[in-house]
């Protein structure tokens, strides 16, 4: 039996046994439901999120005040007016929350702490323009001439090209980093538990009588890894379908290139950490020790994540160095590529280091695995396991 067939057998078992498990089906179903829920719930609330503003009116104010403010506020608010016989009554209304602002014909706009700043500005502006219109009319100026008078002026123009949307790309790359982080945490612990399970129920001795340790390791990482990627894809596809059904999907410009790089680094990063988690699992004999064994890895992962999250605004020296180191690169390099900060040689070097290190890790982990798997009892140190397999 050749190596590839052995790896495929192991991978297929790890994949299908998990797919068939009730726990996996439930957790996948729940996650999909949660994601759909997260997308749908805010839009249900949003449809009714427009503000209701009331203007308290005392005395003779220009007609059409409420209507003009309402029009000016657009979709953000519905505006109506309530008339009060006196200023005192109006202020009582403002305090009780019946109205949000008072317009006193005597020439005052009365507000309190709860008055929306936007409303205040709107009311003041509308009053001023109504006043100008009134005075213009009194002077015999025609309304259309007035509109012409105010037209012209300046237009806003952006000098950033649309394809140069760096912030959007960075945000997208950071999103990919979060997905990678979550995937490694989730599926890394599946791998960790899977390895320890095989060790605690001793099946590993029978399995290793037929396949080499690095084949078992590679098969396990592939089986669980492919399952993990499939689950992430399923959730992603469902999210995209739901989002596009409600026309809420905004894909950043130039996402294609960023997406491709994000995928490449996702695969590399996942492979690197998955192999490391498998090796960590082979060092311990009991599930309770799993988190201890994986602690150095979790720490590295957190560090990489923090470097990435503090660098979302842009390039910095820590990010630059981190993006070259294999354990940090998968979570930091995509950000730099998206931001347009990574030099070609840096990307090439980082990729090369990543691939070489992962391959080295597979060989090394294979040995740790071989040394660790047949030991039961106390937790092995990395170095002891390495030596055990050597001799």
């Amino acid at each position, binding site marked *: 039996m050749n190596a590839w067939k052995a790896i495929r057998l192991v991978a297929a078992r790890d994949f299908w046994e998990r797919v068939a498990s009730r726990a996996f089906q439930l957790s996948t179903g729940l996650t999909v439901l949660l994601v759909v829920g997260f997308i749908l719930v805010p839009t249900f609330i949003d449809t009714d999120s427009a503000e209701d503003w009331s203007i308290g009116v005392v005395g003779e104010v220009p007609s059409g005040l409420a209507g003009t403010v309402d029009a000016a506020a657009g979709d953000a608010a519905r505006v109506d007016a309530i008339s009060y016989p006196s200023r005192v009554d109006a202020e009582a209304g403002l305090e009780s929350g019946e109205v949000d602002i008072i317009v006193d014909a005597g020439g005052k706009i009365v507000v309190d702490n709860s008055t929306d700043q936007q409303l205040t500005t709107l009311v003041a502006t509308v009053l001023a323009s109504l006043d100008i219109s009134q005075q213009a009319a009194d002077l015999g100026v025609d309304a259309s001439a007035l509109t012409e008078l105010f037209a012209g002026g300046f237009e806003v123009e952006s000098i950033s090209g649309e394809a140069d949307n760096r912030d959007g790309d960075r945000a997208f790359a950071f999103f990919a980093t979060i997905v990678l982080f979550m995937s490694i945490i989730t599926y890394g612990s599946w791998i960790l538990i899977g390895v320890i399970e095989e060790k605690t129920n001793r099946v590993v001795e*029978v399995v290793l*009588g037929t396949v080499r340790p690095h084949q078992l390791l590679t098969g396990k990482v592939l089986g669980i890894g492919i399952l993990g990627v499939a689950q992430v894809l399923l959730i992603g596809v469902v999210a995209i379908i739901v989002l596009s059904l409600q026309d809420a999907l905004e894909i950043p410009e130039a996402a294609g290139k960023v997406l491709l790089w994000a995928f490449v680094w996702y695969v590399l990063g996942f492979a690197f950490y998955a192999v490391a988690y498998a090796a960590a699992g082979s060092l311990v004999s009991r599930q309770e020790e799993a988190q201890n064994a994986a602690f150095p890895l979790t720490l590295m992962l957190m560090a990489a994540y923090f470097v990435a999250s503090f660098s979302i605004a842009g390039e910095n020296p820590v990010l630059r160095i981190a993006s070259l180191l294999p354990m940090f690169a998968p979570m930091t390099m995509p950000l730099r590529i998206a931001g347009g900060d990574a030099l070609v040689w840096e990307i090439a070097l980082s990729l090369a280091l990543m691939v070489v290190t992962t391959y080295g890790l597979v060989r090394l982990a294979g040995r740790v695995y071989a040394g660790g798997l047949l030991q039961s009892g106390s937790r092995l140190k990395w170095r002891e396991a390495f030596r055990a397999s050597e*001799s």
Partner: protein
Amino acid sequence: MLEIDRLSKRYGDVVALDGCSFRVARGQLLGFLGPNGSGKTTTMRSVFSLVRPDSGEVRWNNERISASTRLGFGYMPEQRGLYPRMKVASQLAYFGQLHGMAKDQAVAATTEWLERLGLRDRADSRLEELSHGNQQRIQLAAALLHNPELLVLDEPFSGLDPIGVQDMIEILVERAEAGAAVVFSSHQLDLVEDLCEDVVIIASGKVVLAGPVRALRSRSHHRYLEIEVAAPVSGLDREFADLEVVTITDGRITLRLDDDTPLEPLIRRASALGKVQEFSFTPPNLSEVFREVVGQ
């Protein structure tokens, strides 16, 4: 033929194997004996490359064992292990495929073995739902599915009930008769004595005794003399007070003697007490030979 050739292995200061050598031919059923910690498991693991010896070699048909040769072997480790939550049939088929069988072959062999073990109706049960004895049967089937030419079993009888022991014996004998080399370790020496023509005994990582059970027994310098004679305990006790008495009841006495003790005077002495109905002079059993050579 399996050849274990001068295997040595140390773990730090502990010597696990110290030049251990023996052979198992095809068709042979070999009992591999030794006290706890004498190196039996380490030796068996070496066959499957689970342990790399410091020196020495394991050969099959005069060649170093390659990975593909090893797929034709069957192994039942001392600490049993299968996937508890995997279904019985798919689990067996998986192990068959790991041993290089094509999928349909493995599935067919699984059906055959489940049929034979009377577990066909449990094919879709998870392993953990089976009784302990049935899990052991599945473990054995996992080692046998691919019809191995060498079968290595570490303590196959431990934890089995009498029916399980009988089933196991039948299967091992049948495999050996079918031409497989079979080697197993056990602490149940009476059982080994009945089952095997040949045994190897190791102590402290070295083979201390090897050969046909009969020959090993008669090489001992001790013999047991069992006499059935119509005489009370008091008479027997008085008459044989000068010899080493092992057991004594009314009409029956067992003596432990050197192997060169002349028997004629003893027959005469017994006859003087009454009518002798049985007079048997036998070498010690395997259990005692074992204790003699490992010094316990």
